[in-house]
Structures are given as C-alpha cells and as structure tokens.
C-alpha cells in the first residue's frame, strides 16, 4: 500500500512528487504517456508571470504570486535554467494605458515592482517595438524557464529519494476501498491511502472514476506557437504582452532560456483532449497579432510551429481541493498561470492535505540531482577533462546545438531516462536547432537503439507506437 498515488506527471504532479520526496513517505506517480511532461507542460509560453494579472481573491492570484517567488530557489535546487528577463505589457491607446495603471496598482498591492514607461523609454529597452505602442508596464520580476526541464528535474530528484514513477500507465478505474483506493491501469493495480489527481486535460475523467460524478469539466483551450531560430536571440529582450482583455493574455513575444523566440499563443476552445494540431487559421492569426507588439519580425527564421492545450475548467479558477470522496485530492483546471503557480500549488497541497493526514518526518539525507554535463556550455578546460575521461563527449551529434553522443547516452540512462526521439530532444536538444533534426535524428535513433538494447525499428519518435522507421532494407513483410 502506497501512502500517496499521484496521477499525472506534468509540472504539477512532478512538483508534488518532489515536495513529498523531501519526507519519508511512499509515493508513486503514474503517467499515461511514455515520458514525463509530455502534454501541457511540453507546450506553453514558458513564462513565470510575476502575478499582477489574475483577479483579486482567486486561487490563481494567490498561487501565482507565491509561485513566482519560489521559482528562483526551486530552479537552483533542481539545477535547471531560470532567467529573470522582465516583461513589458504594451499599450496602444489611452484606454489601454488605463488598464496598465490598474495592473500597476494591483501589482503594488501584491508587492510586485512595476513602472510605466513612455515610448522613448520603451525604445531604449526594445528596438523592435511596433509603431503603435505608446506606453508599457515594465515588471522586472517576470522570468522564463524550460517547463519540461523543471518537471523532469523534479521527477529525477524525487526518484533519487525513493519516489516511484511509472510511465505508460493510463488509469482506467479507481475504487474507494475501506483503507484507501484501488487504482487500475490496463496492466497493473495500485493501492494507496491518498490519491492526488493531477491529470491535467483528463482531470475531470479521473475525478469521475473516483467520485462517480463530474463535478467540474475540463475545457481544453488550444494555443499555437511559432519558434524562431537562435539567430534571432536578441530580437526582443523582455517578455512582451499585449494589454490583457477578457479573452486572456493574448499573443505574446517571448525569449526562451535557450535563445530562441516564441510567438503565440492564440486561444481556441476545442472539444478534443488530444488534438494538438496546428492550423492554418491559428498560425495566420498569430502572424497578424504579433504585429501589434513588434515590427521587423524575421519570419524567415521560423524553425518550428506547435500547439498545446491548456486545461481550463468551467470554474474559471484553479481547483485545488479535497473532492467529495475523502483523501481524493483534485488539482485541476491548472491553466495559465499554472506554470508560474506550480511550486506554490505543490506547497499548498502538501501543507493542506498531505501533512495534516500523514505527519511525515523530514528526510535527513536528501539526494540532490546531478546536473547534466553540457559540453557546449563548458569551459575549454572542462571540455578537455570530460573528453579525456570519456571520448564520446568529443563526438558531436547535433551540429546546431553542439551536443555529444555521451550527453544523449546520459539522458537515456538517467533514472527517468528518455525513451523516444522527442524525449531526448526535450532533455538535451538535438533537433531543436535550424536543421530540426535533419542531420542528427538518424544518429539519435541509433544511440537510443544501442543504449536501450533494442532494434532501431522499435525506436519511437514521440508517443508509444510512433515508430520512426518501418522496415529493414531488403526484407519483406
């Protein structure tokens, strides 16, 4: 019997698992995918919003403000990138300027620094602003991270501290037993005293399995994005937001931790929970909308487009509560600012539901995660040392991002190791550059096959059963 079973390995589930792993407890995390952080956490704006945007008296506001404050130290603990680049909310007329003033007041109340800048002050910070922009609200606290890397680092650390993580386990039934829950997947059964529902887009379905009722509905909202190559690294320096409206934060221009630029998202309510297609209309809408924020967009440098689903709910706020079934905790409807709120949500869930029930004792020996060796970022002396120690650090696979064979092997061999081409890409970035894997993907497939001891034909591109290759040459069916 487990103490706690966490369903869903996105940023929320991962950080709750990480929080638990600091204590003596039995925790298992399940995910239906073949990798951690493969849905919403994999496809979003990657921003730690400072927290002035959500309405007063909402869980969103409370979690966002606290979460944003926890991030810098969390990323230090997890040894992942965190960059406080600051943000500008841009206004194009007097009415929007009023909105900026309201946001500034709200920010002040929440202890967040902001200042309103006029056009000439703005231009000193950002040279590619659209001619329409007349004022901007600058907030130095806004930061950027790589969301899936935060989740993966959290799970890796949790696993190093006795948390179990089982992938490819889609929950199909949950039974309330006298002493806890029986949770069934296609292959296995798990027993636990407490179940935490972090199933993201499927949180309403999982809730229904346990409670028999749909007490809330997840309403997927799709957002599409363009990615610009690293050649555009300084196209913008801040996160740029348009003035927020009823419809949300709008289409943004976002620098990423790795020096790319994200343009997006649009917001489209759709009925399918797995539909992460990009669309002609969606992408066109983004092209038009970013023109209100910036000019001279280097469209020729688009290297990728993708879409993600935000798990919005019909309650319009985060749902973080014990359900009608005792010890079944819902953490649902975590749409924007979910990423920014995640550490606060994990802390809240632990303090309000886990700690009062179990009173776990703190681990005296907590294993911290070993940082990945990244050859491209090493000093010359370190490069020499690593290559001398293991020559495979000197064999570069990905020329765009300068990634060696050994870095890929390492990410496969780690405790929550990569099992697909995309999982490798998430961890060490081959295929994230300009050639988009044109040169390195065949090598990555080969290294995955060799390291896992499987045939290249068994290597998946992303999800389970998404093979890269279909047949060996010269062999009939």
């Amino acid at each position, binding site marked *: 019997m487990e103490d706690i079973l966490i369903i869903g390995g996105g940023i929320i589930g991962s950080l709750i698992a990480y929080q638990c792993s600091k204590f003596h407890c039995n925790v298992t995390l399940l995910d239906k995918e073949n990798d951690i952080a493969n849905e919403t956490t994999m496809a979003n704006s990657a921003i730690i919003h400072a927290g002035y945007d959500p309405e007063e008296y909402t869980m969103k506001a409370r979690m966002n403000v606290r979460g944003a404050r926890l991030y810098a130290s969390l990323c230090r603990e997890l040894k992942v990138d965190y960059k406080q680049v600051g943000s500008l909310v841009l206004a194009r007329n007097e009415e929007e300027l009023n909105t900026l003033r309201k946001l500034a007041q709200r920010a002040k109340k929440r202890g967040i620094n902001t200042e309103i800048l006029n056009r000439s002050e703005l231009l000193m910070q950002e040279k590619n602003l659209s001619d329409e922009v007349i004022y901007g609200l600058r907030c130095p606290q806004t930061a950027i991270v790589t969301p899936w890397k935060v989740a993966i680092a959290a799970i890796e650390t949790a696993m190093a501290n006795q948390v179990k993580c089982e992938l490819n386990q889609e929950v199909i039934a949950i039974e309330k037993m006298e002493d806890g829950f029986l949770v069934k997947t296609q292959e296995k059964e798990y027993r636990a005293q407490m179940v935490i529902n972090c199933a993201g887009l499927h949180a309403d379905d999982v809730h229904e399995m346990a409670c028999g009722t749909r007490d809330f509905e997840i309403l997927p909202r799709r957002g599409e994005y*363009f990615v610009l190559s690293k050649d555009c690294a300084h196209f913008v320096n801040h996160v740029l937001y348009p003035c927020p409206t009823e419809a949300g934060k709008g289409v943004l221009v976002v620098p990423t931790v790795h020096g790319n630029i994200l343009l997006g998202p649009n917001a489209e309510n759709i009925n399918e929970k797995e539909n992460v297609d990009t669309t002609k209309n*969606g992408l066109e809408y983004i092209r038009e909308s970013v023109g209100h924020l910036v000019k001279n967009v280097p469209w020729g440098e688009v290297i990728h487009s993708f879409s993600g689903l935000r798990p919005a709910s019909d309650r319009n706020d985060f749902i973080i509560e014990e359900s009608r079934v005792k010890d079944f905790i819902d953490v649902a409807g975590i749409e924007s600012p979910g990423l920014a709120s995640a550490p606060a949500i994990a802390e809240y869930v632990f303090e309000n539901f886990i700690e009062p029930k179990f009173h776990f004792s703190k681990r005296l020996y907590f294993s911290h995660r070993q940082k990945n060796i990244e050859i491209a970022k090493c000093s010359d002396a370190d490069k*020499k040392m690593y*290559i001398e120690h293991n020559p495979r650090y000197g064999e570069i696979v990905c*020329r765009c991002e300068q990634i060696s064979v050994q870095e890929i092997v390492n990410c496969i061999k780690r405790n929550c190791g990569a099992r697909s081409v995309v999982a490798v890409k998430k961890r060490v970035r081959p295929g994230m550059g300009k050639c988009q894997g044109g040169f390195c993907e065949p090598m990555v497939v080969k290294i995955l096959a060799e390291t896992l001891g499987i045939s290249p034909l068994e290597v998946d591109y992303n999800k389970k059963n998404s093979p890269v290759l279909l047949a060996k040459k010269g062999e009939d069916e």
Partner: protein
Amino acid sequence: MKHVDCCIIGGGSAAISCAISARKFGVQNICIIEREAELGGILNQCIHNGFGLHIFKKECTGPEYAELMIEELSKYNIEILLSTTVLSIGVDKHVQAVNSQNGLIDIMTDAIVLASGCMERNRGAISIPGSRCSGVFTAGSAQRYLNMDGYLCGKKVFILGSGDIGLIMARRMTLEGAEVLGVAEIQPYSNGLNRNIVQCLDDFDIPLYLSTTVTKIIGEKRIERIELSKVDENLKPIAGTQREIEVDCLLLSIGLIPDITCLNRLPVEKDARTHSVIVNECNEMTLPGFFACGNALQVHDLVDYASMEGEATGRQVAYYLQEGFVQCEPRKVKAGENISYVVPQRLRIDNIRSDCKFSFRVKKPMKNCVLRIMADDQCIKEIKKRYALPAEMETINLEKEILRNEWQTLHFEMREVYE
C-alpha cells in the same frame, strides 16, 4: 596551438577540390576538418548515378565520385581531421574543433575556407499545419536512413516538393518496395532537373501534381493521411480543392539552404537571397582571408559545379596567401528583374586576372529571353537564351576588359522577348 596556412571546413567535393587546387598553387600547410568518419560529404549517401560527367567525363555514383576525389587528394599529403566538429571560428582565424581522439583542437590559420555544404529546408520552415506525429522526414534524412543505415522510413510514401533529392528518393524507395503515391509541387513548374523528372517519376509512373501542396498532416501517433490542396497563382490553397491521401510517410524536398552555422558569431555580411555570405570576385567574405565555396556559398545543381567552385577558390586562397589582394572599394553586383540572386555580390576589378565567373538563377521559368548585364545605366553584355529555369543555375564569364569602366552597381536582369 597548431598553425596552418589554410583550414578548410568540410570534407565534401568542394572542400577536396579546394584543397587540391590550393596545394597545386603552392599552399603548404592545409588542414581539412570533416564531421563524418570519412571524406566525401553527402556524396556518400547518393548511391545513384549521374555524377562526374563534367569533371571526370564519365558517369559515376556519389561514392565513386567521392572515391576518385579522395584518391587524387591522397597524392598531396594534406592533413585531414575526420569525425571532427568545428565548435567556433574567431575573427582572429582561431578555429576550435573537437573530436574523441584529440579532444579540443585549437588551430590558428591564415586563411579559412567554409565548404560545409547545405541543409534541407524542413517542415518548420514552411509551417505545414496538422499533427506532429512521426513519419515526416526531409528527403535527405530518408536517404541517409536507407542508404547508410539500411532502414526504410515508409512504405506508402508521398513527397512534397519536386527538388532533386525528393525525385531521387521517389525512385529509390520504389526500388526498395515502397509505394510512392505522388509528388506535389506548389509552383506551376517542377523544381528538379528535367532528367530526374523523366528517370525518377515518369519511368515509374509516379504522378507529379503541379500547383499543389500539402495543407494538413493527419495522424495520431504515426502519420495516417495528408490533405492535398490546389493553390492559386499566389500559391495560396484554394478552398474546396482539398483531398486526402492515405500514407505512412511524407518526405519533404522543399529546398536546400547553405549551412553556415559555423560562422554564427562572426561579423560577416550575409545575403538574404542566397541565405549565405556575401563574397567578392575571389569568393572571399567581407572579412579578409575568409572564403566560401560549394553548397555553403550557393546551392549547386551538380556536384561537378561545386567541385569547380572549390577549385577556383583554392586558387584564390593561394593568391591571397602569396601576394595578397589589391585592396580597393568593392563595387556591388545586384540581382535585377527576374533574377533571384547573383554570386559574387561584390567586385574589386583589380583582382580579376582575365575574367570573372558569375552564377545566378532566374525567379521563374522563361522562354526566348534576354540576359542583360547593366553597369549602372549601360548594358555591357546581352545574351539571348531560348529558355531559363529556376532549377538550373546559369553561369557567365565576363572579361576584365568589359568590367573595367567606371560604374557603381552591376545589375543582372532577364526579360522575355516578344516577337
């Protein structure tokens, strides 16, 4: 720190020709840096015929062409670093590279030649809407999987783009037992060499759909279907013309772009039209002593032409190292009407020995046309052509004599003549 006279980045046909010619013209210390375990570059995965007609006066396969080149190179005792990746190049001509045997390698050189080939445009570049399932490849990676690693990446294949690699792969995958359902080209004309259309599509009854493109990729895990649409004269999909085709693989052959990743941090001027560097009559970039040739400078139709450009560049490297170039304000060369680009983009007349070779492409297929080369307002050369195609690079040699006069800008333009 090791010191050489000339460091050549890349080990394909242009690089090898450049090394040989530089040596023939007296450059002593030459070093070639190649990423792969053997020289030859992309030739090694091009196991089809049709290479070498111009250089070797016979028809070779890619690996055969490479072998002939490598054999020739081996006579010259030129240093070759294999399985070695260049990490950075400094303005001071400090090249840092890495391999598993020597670890970090620091080389100071007097001349650098970028001959690092090109890369394929991919799905990201044209933002095809739809699912991000597996089964979408560039034609070149499919070629690598098949010819180098021995795996087929699809059995029911559709190809977007009529670039040469796509056409070659249509035939290749058919011969390996895959079913190639068709090739779609967004332009109203094909982008491949005519001989490839005939030998790779027509001979195998593979249909070529012009003015057609893929407007959606459908599939949950692996690609299951694609949506094809006809496009109008502005290349926009026409509503109502969509149809779906069942496939398990989509290959993209939508163009090549020079791979100049190595130059990332260098202050060299670039040409948005070639997606490469701007060079002068010596194939020298806007930084003295930095040269470019082969597909890294402009994408060639035939490997023979890349070799020739390498050879010419090797000679210039020798001149640069031995005598230096005459420094004078370079004049500009520009692509005018119906011309998509011209290389070189800069001219310093005094460095031209007898004549200067220009390469360019037209923007659209043209018939009965006239190429005019204008020195400011004055036409210095006029050539009638029966036809010109974007898929075929045009070259012209201009003698120093006719370039000598006073002018600011040289314009290349192509116009159809109506009789």
